[in-house]
C-alpha cells in the first residue's frame, strides 16, 4: 500500500511538472505583449520598453519559468501585471466564491441525479424511465449559460425572488451569500445532474444483471430490497469517479457562469486576465486548477486502492 501510494505520488509530481511546462509554453506562444496591451495605441516605444523592464518581461523565457515555479513552491505566486497586487491574495479572495459554488452545484447535482437515476433504473422501460431519460437528454443538450439566462428571466426579472447578478460576499452573512449562489449553482448543476443520472441508471442496470443480484433475489429479497442493498452500493464506484471528474468540470464551468451572473470568482479572474494579457495571473490560476484536479484524482486513486486490494497490484 505504501509503495503504491509512493508510486502514485511520483506520477503526481511528474504530472505537475509537465503541466507547469505546458501552461507556461502555451501562454508564451499566445500573441500579445502585456506591456503593449496595458499602454494602448498612443504609447511610445520607450514607454513600452520601460514597462516591460518594470514587469520583469525582459528576462529569458527559461529564467522566467524557473522564477515562476520556484516562487510557487514557496507560496509566492508573483505580482499581477495589471492589478499590481500579489496573485496569491487575489486567488485567495476568489476561491471563496468559486469553490463554494462548485460544491453547492455538486450537492445539487447529486441530490437530483441519484434519485432520478435510481428511479429510472427501477422502472426500466416504463413511462417513468422514459420521461426521466428524455429530461436528462434535454439536460445534456442545453448549454448551461443559456439555461442560466432562462432561469434569470423567470426567477429574477419576472418573479423577483433573486438578484439577477452579483454576490454580496460572505461578510453579508451565510444565507444571503447562499441565496446569491443559488441560481448560478442550479445553472451549473442541472446539465451535470443529467449526465450523472444517466451514468447512475446505466451503472445500476449493469449491476442488476450481475450474478449476485440473482443470488440476492434467490435468498428472498424483493426487487426493491435487492436494488437498494446490493446494486446501488456497487453502482457507486463509476458514479463516484464521474463525480470526481465533475468537480473539476464545475470549477472550470464557472468561467462562463461567473460571467453571466457577475460573480467575482476564479473563472471571472481567468477571463479578465486572459483578455488583459495578465499572464502571470492566468498561469497561476490555471496551475492551481490543474493542481486541484490532480490532487483530487490522487485522493480518489488512493481511496480506491484502500477499498479494493485488486487495484494495488494492477497499477
Amino acid at each position, binding site marked *: 500500500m505504501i509503495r503504491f501510494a509512493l508510486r502514485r505520488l511520483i506520477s503526481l509530481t511528474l504530472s505537475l511538472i509537465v503541466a507547469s511546462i505546458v501552461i507556461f509554453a502555451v501562454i508564451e506562444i499566445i500573441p500579445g505583449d502585456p506591456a503593449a496591451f496595458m499602454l494602448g495605441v498612443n504609447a511610445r516605444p520607450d514607454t513600452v520598453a520601460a514597462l516591460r523592464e518594470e514587469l520583469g518581461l525582459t528576462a529569458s523565457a527559461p529564467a522566467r519559468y524557473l522564477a515562476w515555479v520556484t516562487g510557487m513552491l514557496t507560496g509566492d505566486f508573483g505580482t499581477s501585471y495589471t492589478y499590481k497586487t500579489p496573485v496569491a491574495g487575489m486567488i485567495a479572495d476568489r476561491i471563496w466564491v468559486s469553490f463554494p459554488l462548485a460544491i453547492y452545484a455538486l450537492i445539487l447535482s447529486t441530490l437530483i441525479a441519484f434519485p432520478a437515476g435510481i428511479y429510472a433504473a427501477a422502472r426500466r422501460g416504463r413511462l417513468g424511465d422514459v420521461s426521466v431519460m428524455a429530461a436528462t437528454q434535454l439536460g445534456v443538450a442545453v448549454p448551461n449559460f443559456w439555461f442560466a439566462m432562462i432561469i434569470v428571466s423567470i426567477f429574477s426579472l419576472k418573479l423577483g425572488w433573486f438578484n439577477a447578478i452579483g454576490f454580496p*460576499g460572505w461578510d453579508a452573512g451565510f444565507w444571503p451569500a447562499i441565496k446569491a449562489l443559488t441560481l448560478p449553482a442550479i445553472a451549473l448543476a442541472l446539465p451535470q445532474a443529467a449526465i450523472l443520472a444517466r451514468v447512475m441508471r446505466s451503472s445500476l442496470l449493469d449491476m442488476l444483471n450481475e450474478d449476485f443480484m440473482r443470488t440476492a433475489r434467490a435468498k428472498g429479497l424483493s426487487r426493491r430490497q435487492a436494488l437498494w442493498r446490493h446494486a446501488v452500493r456497487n453502482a457507486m464506484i463509476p458514479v463516484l469517479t464521474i463525480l470526481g471528474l465533475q468537480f473539476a468540470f464545475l470549477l472550470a464551468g464557472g468561467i462562463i457562469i461567473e460571467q453571466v*451572473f457577475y460573480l467575482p470568482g476564479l473563472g471571472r*479572474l481567468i477571463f479578465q486576465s486572459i483578455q488583459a494579457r495578465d499572464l502571470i495571473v492566468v498561469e497561476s490560476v490555471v496551475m492551481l486548477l490543474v493542481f486541484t484536479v490532480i490532487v483530487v484524482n490522487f485522493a480518489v486513486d488512493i481511496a480506491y486502492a484502500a477499498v479494493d486490494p485488486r487495484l494495488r497490484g494492477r497499477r
Partner: protein
Amino acid sequence: MTIRTTLTASLLALTAGMAAAQTDITVAIQLEPPNLDPTGGAAQAIDSVLYSNVFEGLTRFMADGSVVPGLAHSWDISEGGTVYTFNLREGVTFHDGTTMDAEDVKFSLDRARAEDSTNAQKGLFAGITDVTVVDPLTVQVTLDGPNGMFLFNMAWGDAVIVAPESIETIASNPIGTGAFVFDEWVQGDRIEMSRNESYWGDAPALESATFKFISDPTAAFAAVMAEDVDAFVGFPAPENLPQFEADPRFQVLSGNTEGETILAMNNGMAPFDNVLVRQAVSLAIDRDAIINGAMFGQGTPIGTHFAPHNPDYLDLLELSPHDPERARELLAEAGFPDGFTTTLKLPPPSYARRGGEIIASQLRAVGIETEITNVEWAQWLEEVFGNKDYGLTIVSHTEPMDIGIYANPDYYFQYGDPAFVAIMDELNATTDPEGRTALLHDAQRMISENYVNGYLFELAIATVAKAGLSGLWLNQPTASVDLTGVSWSN
C-alpha cells in the same frame, strides 16, 4: 399667506424632498479597470471610474468637451507661447490630508515625462522642457515651442495631479483631490467611493457611489431590468435600447464618444499604397447600412477623422458617397479590373465584428474579397498595430482630438504624408482660435481627399439610467462617469 409662511412652506417642502431623495448610486460600466492609476495605463475603464471623481488635473474636460480650469484656477501664457504660469487653487488637499501644492504639480508632470515613465500618453508631455515651482501656489511650465494643445492635453486623465506621498500604492489605493474619496475595491466585483467632505469645490449631491463591471450583454440587460444597478454607462446591447425607452422606469441617453470608427487600410502595403484603390474601398462602403445593421442605428456618419460634435468638424461625406459603380471603375483604373483579395482583421467589439461582416459583403460587391480573421485585442496590438501585418481592419480611435496620428508614418496605417506633417507642425505652433480652425479644416480635408482610411461613423454611447437620475454626461468627451453633478430627483 405672508412671505414668511410661504418661505417656511417651501423650505419644508424642500427638506422633505431632500430627505426622500436617494443619495447613493450603483453605476455599471462594461470593463473593470485593471488598476486604479490613471497615469499608468491606457485602459479607459480607469478614467471612467476615477476621472473627475477621485482625480483632477490642472485643467479638466466638461461634459460638452470644453476645457475649463481644474486645480489651476487661472494661467498666464508668455509672449511666445512657451511659458505657462499656472495659479493653483488655495486650500486643496489630497484625500489623505496632505496639501496639494506646486510641488505636487511638478512631481506629477516630471514623473509623467521621465525617462522610465510608464505613462500611456507620454506624448502629451513631450514638449515640456522644465517645470519650476515659483511659490506653493504657482508653477511655471516651459515648453520647447508654442503648443496650441497644451491646456487641452493637461485635461486628460493621464495628466491628473498625484502626490509623492501616495504614489507607491496608487494602483490599488488611489489618493486624489476629487469630490469623491476611494473606499474599497473588491476585485472582480465593485469599487466603492464616498463624498469628500473637505472638497474644495461644490459638494456633490451623492453621498456614496458603487461601480460594477458587466461586459456580458445578457447579464447587463438582467442587471438593469432587475434594478440591481441604477445606471449603465455604455450599455453593451443596443438591440435592447428600444425596450428601455418604452419602459417608464428608465431613461436612455444616446450620446457621442470621441471614437472615430474607421476601416483602416494599410497604406504602406500594396494595393492600398494606391490612392485609387483606397478611394474605391471608401466608395464601396455604405455607412447607413453599417450603422443600422451593426449598431442598431446608433452612430453618426463621418467623412473624416474628426468628431462631428466638435465645432471644428468639417462635413466631408460628399467625398466618399456610396457608389459601387464608380468604385469598380476606380479599381479597373488602378489595375484591378477583377478586384483582389486582402485580409480583414477584426478586434472583439461588436462595431468591428458585426460591422466587418457587412463591410466584407459591401466590398465583395465591387470585387474585393476579404479573408476575415477575428482577433483578441492583445493579438490586434501585436499583429496589426505592431507588425502592420494586415490589409484592412476596423477600429474605433477613442482618444480625443487624435488627428495627429496621421502625421506619424510609423503609425499602423502608415500614412505620414510630409504635407500633412507640415500642417500638424503649424497647428501645434498656432494658438489663435481662427488659425487653428483653418488648419484643422485643412488637415481633415487632406486625409479625406487622400482616402487614407474608410471613415465610417462616430461611435455612440448609450446610457440607461433610472428615470429619477439626472446629471449624467450625455457625451463622453473623455472616458468618464463624472458623478460630481449627478443627483436623484425623487
